[in-house]
């Protein structure tokens, strides 16, 4: 239904080549994990899909057609530095998604629809474990709590494509497991496409149906900025057979520089 294609995409910041020759097809419904060393360009890849960043060369296509350059409600995002709206409470942050969708002019809900939206928001807030903090402003939340709020906000609108940039990085293993349990059924039921950047190899393998690793393959010691990263591994995790039983240690070892 909505296939994302990267056709020979390059991204450069000034002199520095960050991504080079990226060719990638992401089928609808894929849960794609992206791993790679710090600074490889994982976030940049997400920004390309979001429409926040334009490729220097090459094209990003949606179902074969040029990409809508503006971020839209079909794509949800959790940024690496989990940014929530500082002027809204926890409830307000989640509710905003519903309000923006339903009403054009004032972007506010009233009466029954509002009650319903609040109900849905509260359920979501409860699910990410912020139930007792619903009236706090983000500045009074801990790092992990802000991250969970950003997740709740991003999934509230059930976008067709969900982009997650190290979404569980600031969470303890217990909370992290809860989040996995929240995301996985959502992805399955709604047939979302999810692209998740993570540094937790276990997580990458555990959740995804496909895994790519970004890294530099060429290196010029004189001008280290001349070459960018591209895709070094591309594993299909649905066919159980390709992943060895003790599998991820191998992949992990190879991703290390």
């Amino acid at each position, binding site marked *: 239904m909505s296939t994302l294609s990267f056709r020979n995409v390059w991204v450069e910041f000034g002199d520095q080549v960050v991504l080079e020759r990226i060719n990638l097809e992401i089928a609808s419904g894929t849960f794609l994990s992206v791993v790679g060393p710090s600074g490889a360009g994982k976030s940049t890849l997400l920004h390309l899909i979001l429409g926040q960043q334009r490729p220097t060369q090459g094209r990003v296509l949606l179902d074969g057609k040029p990409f809508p350059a503006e971020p839209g*409600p079909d794509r949800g995002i959790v940024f690496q530095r989990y*940014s929530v709206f500082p*002027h809204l409470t926890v409830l307000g942050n989640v509710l905003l998604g519903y309000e923006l969708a339903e009403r054009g002019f004032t972007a506010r809900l009233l009466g029954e629809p509002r009650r319903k939206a609040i109900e849905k928001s509260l359920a979501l807030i409860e699910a990410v474990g912020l139930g007792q903090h619903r009236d706090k402003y983000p500045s009074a939340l801990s790092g992990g709590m802000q991250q969970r709020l950003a997740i709740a906000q991003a999934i509230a609108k059930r976008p067709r494509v969900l982009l997650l940039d190290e979404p569980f990085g600031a969470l303890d293993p217990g909370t992290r497991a809860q989040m996995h349990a929240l995301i996985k059924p959502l992805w399955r039921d709604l047939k979302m496409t999810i692209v998740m950047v993570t540094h937790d190899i276990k997580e990458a393998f555990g959740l995804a149906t496909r895994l790519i690793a970004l890294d530099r393959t060429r290196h010029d010691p004189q001008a280290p900025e001349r070459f960018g990263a591209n895709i070094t591994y591309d594993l299909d995790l649905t066919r159980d057979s390709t992943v060895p039983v003790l599998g991820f240690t191998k992949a992990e070892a190879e991703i290390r520089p």
Partner: protein
Amino acid sequence: MNVVPGRGARIILAMLPFILIAIIYVIGSAERRAANPDDKLLPPVSEMVVTSKRLVAEPDRRSGDYVLWTDTAASLRRLALGLGISALAGLILGIAIGLLPVAGAGFGTLVAVLSMIPPMAVLPILFIVFGLGELSKVVLIIVGITPMLVRDISLEVAGMPREQLIKAQTLGASTWQVAIRVVLPQIMPRLIKCLRLMIGPAFLFLISAEAIAADAGLGYRIFLVRRYLSMDVILPYVAWITLLAYLLDLALSLIGRRAFPWAYEQEAR
């Protein structure tokens, strides 16, 4: 930097410079009086008190008005109108210019240029267009402070974290919705801060407008009595204006704190 004075010390510290200024004034005034018993430039406090009492409590010989109150009412009405309209215009134009590249290109330069035109110098044209009545006084305030408000707010909007705008769009917001649900509320504390800074200039323009053509108002009275250097009227009036402005400033700051608590978390060190 880490030495935080207590509540009592804080009040004393705040009072100190005022007391100093008062002492300097009293000495200066006494000296001038010693040289010329009719000196009008630095009248002693007692004289100012007498004059103030008359202005506050006795009807004027000629008009029968309680001068201070009619002046204050006239001026505050103009000020409120001017500040209100400017705030509205500043908000709308500022957000448009800061948020929409097209508006920024179209109006950005215009506003930058307009903000540089000294309004006093083109007064004749303002008079012709807006007449000489109440309107032109309010217009002078608006013309004087709106460009600054617009520029400050548009710079602030343009400096908002891009992530937030993108986030809002991924939540389905149209440009209009981004403006009213994300940008507007976050810019309001800035508007209030900015309005607080603009109280001074607003009074300045008001006084200038009243100096030019008026029959009541704080500025009218000051410039009227400036003709015979009645500092015993001017100084209480200036003090009164300053007090009014300071109260307005306090009120705005309280409103800001009440309405936008999230913006003041940082300050609470």
